[in-house]
C-alpha cells in the first residue's frame, strides 16, 4: 500500500507542503505537477474560474488513481491536493507530487495521475468571461 495524501481545499494550495509530504530517504526523485489558472481560453479572456467538487467521491477516485499508478510504477509516496471555490488568474488549481527511486517512474506516474484525474475525478470547472460563463467540457 503506497503512502497517499489527498485533500480538496477551498483555500490556497501550498505546493511546498505537498512536495514535503512525499519526501523519503528511499526516493531519488520527486516529480511535481502544478496546474494554474490561465488568463485565456480559445482567444477569450478569462476573469476567474469556479471549481465545484463532489468531495467524498473525488477523494475515492483520486485514491484509485494513486493505487493504479503504484501498480504500474515503483511509487514511494504520492500526494494530490485540489482546490475548489473561486480561483483567480495564476492561482494553483491542483498539485500532484510523486516520489520514486528513479526519475523516469516519477515523471510517468505524475503525468498518468493528472491525465486520469481530468477524466475520472468528479470536479467541475466553470470559466467566467466578461460576457458570460461556461462549464468546461460539458458539451461536445
Amino acid at each position: 500500500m503506497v503512502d497517499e495524501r489527498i485533500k480538496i481545499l477551498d483555500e490556497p494550495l501550498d505546493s511546498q507542503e505537498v512536495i514535503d509530504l512525499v519526501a523519503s530517504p528511499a526516493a531519488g526523485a520527486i516529480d511535481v505537477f502544478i496546474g494554474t489558472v490561465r488568463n485565456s481560453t480559445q482567444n477569450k479572456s478569462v476573469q476567474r474560474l469556479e471549481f465545484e467538487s463532489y468531495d467524498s467521491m473525488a477523494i475515492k477516485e483520486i485514491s484509485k488513481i494513486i493505487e493504479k499508478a503504484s501498480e504500474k510504477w515503483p511509487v514511494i509516496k504520492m500526494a494530490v491536493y485540489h482546490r475548489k471555490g473561486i480561483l483567480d488568474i495564476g492561482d494553483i488549481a491542483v498539485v500532484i507530487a510523486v516520489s520514486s527511486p528513479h526519475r523516469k517512474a516519477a515523471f510517468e506516474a505524475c503525468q498518468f495521475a493528472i491525465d486520469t484525474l481530468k477524466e475520472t475525478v468528479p470536479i467541475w470547472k466553470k470559466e467566467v468571461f466578461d460576457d458570460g460563463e461556461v462549464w468546461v467540457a460539458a458539451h461536445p
Partner: protein
Amino acid sequence: MVKVKLFGIAKDIVSASYFEAESGVTVNHLKQNMIAQYPAFSNLRSVLVAVNDEYALDDVVIYENDDVAIIPPVSGG
C-alpha cells in the same frame, strides 16, 4: 424517494442542488427520466450516475438510503 445530488452544469439545468427520484428504479431509468424532464441533459457530452461514491452501470437499482449523484462531464485539474 431518492434525493439525487446535482453538480456543475446539472445543477444549472435543474436550477436546484437536488432532484427527487423514485426508489427502486434503475440508473438507466433515472437518466431517461431526467432527460425527459430536462431535455438540456441530452446536449451534454455525457451523463453518468454515481451510487455510493462509485460510478454505476445502467442496471444498478437505486434505493432511498443510497447516496446518488448525477455526474456531468468532469473538468478538474
